């Protein structure tokens, strides 16, 4: 059946709370007289369904001494951070904080946590596959062709800290064991980096001067007014 576009009420409001038709007029409009007539002068009456027998609940054995307030139910689900419209896959970003401040870097995608996934590419400027917050980044209007890059397997878990193994409390071995664990970057991550960067570097080299651009750091020089600069 074709859906009704707007619901039409039988009793439109003159003022909120006061309908146009009186109680007796509505009785007639709703056709209650016809329902009564159909049922032999009375409204149709249905017997109530019998409720199933429930075993009576025993009073609890233990009441807590003080009344503890229960916190209200919170069903809020945080949404991923809204991505600035100027940031699209392939945009060159300028990182503003951290050890890579000033580096110009290629944006790959936004991760479910809201952070941005970026890469140097590593060979060009030493920035690896990394997460960065949108707030600490300037988006330039320069875009790189990112179509050949596959970033599906990279997500927040890939970048999370590995759970620390329980350390044995042998005094002599204690310091050496710690050192070994931290320094090595797993070969798998290095391969991922190379894979992502391979096609990126090709599309970067297609544009003249872009490689040198990404290799250089951004800095404010004399006379540059950030609020007047077009990035």
């Amino acid at each position, binding site marked *: 059946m074709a859906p009704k576009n707007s619901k039409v009420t039988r009793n439109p409001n003159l003022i909120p709370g006061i309908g146009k038709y009186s109680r007796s007029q509505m009785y007639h409009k709703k056709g209650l007289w016809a329902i009564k007539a159909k049922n032999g002068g009375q409204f149709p009456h249905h017997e109530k369904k019998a409720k199933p027998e429930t075993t009576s609940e025993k009073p609890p054995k233990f009441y807590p001494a003080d009344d503890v307030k229960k916190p209200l139910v919170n069903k809020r689900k945080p949404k991923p951070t809204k991505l600035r419209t100027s940031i699209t896959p392939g945009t060159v970003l300028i990182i503003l904080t951290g050890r890579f401040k000033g580096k110009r870097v290629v944006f790959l995608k936004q991760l479910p946590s809201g952070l941005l996934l970026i890469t140097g590419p590593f060979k060009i400027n030493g920035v690896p596959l990394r997460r960065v917050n949108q707030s600490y980044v300037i988006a330039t209007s320069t875009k790189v062709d990112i179509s050949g890059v596959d970033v599906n397997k990279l997500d927040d878990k890939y970048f999370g800290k590995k759970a620390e193994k329980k350390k044995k409390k042998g005094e002599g071995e204690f310091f050496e064991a710690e050192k070994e664990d931290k320094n090595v970057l797993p070969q798998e991550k290095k391969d991922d980096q190379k894979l992502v960067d391979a096609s990126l570097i090709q599309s970067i080299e297609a544009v003249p*001067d872009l490689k040198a651009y990404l290799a250089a750091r951004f800095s404010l020089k004399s006379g540059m007014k950030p609020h007047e600069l077009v990035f």
Partner: protein
Amino acid sequence: MPFKRYVEIGRVALVNYGKEYGRLVVIVDVIDQNRALIDAPDMVRTQINFKRLSLTDIKIDINRVPKKKALVQAMKEADVQGKWERSSWGRKLIVQKKRALLNDFDRFKLMLARIKRGGLIRQELSKLRKEEAST
């Protein structure tokens, strides 16, 4: 010492303050000691204080308060836009506008180009110096 650019009917001026900042306009009438009536092909004729105008060297031949069509035609015949864009003042403004719109990447490419140009100039200069030294 005497003035070279006069406020007169047909004087082309640059608006240097206000909503119409940066626009080239023609003085079409003088209202009183402080104000003039100005007009340009793409704007409604308005009054403006002289303090908001910077007079240029360009002057066109029009009657007092010409019709819009006549004004546009007179400006075209005198090639006001062309003269302006060829004047050093006009060229400076065009360059300023271009620079303001430069992208970060464009500024980088500009820097490389300036370094390259500087290098070439230095090469030529050193060649000339060598010639001087040898003679």
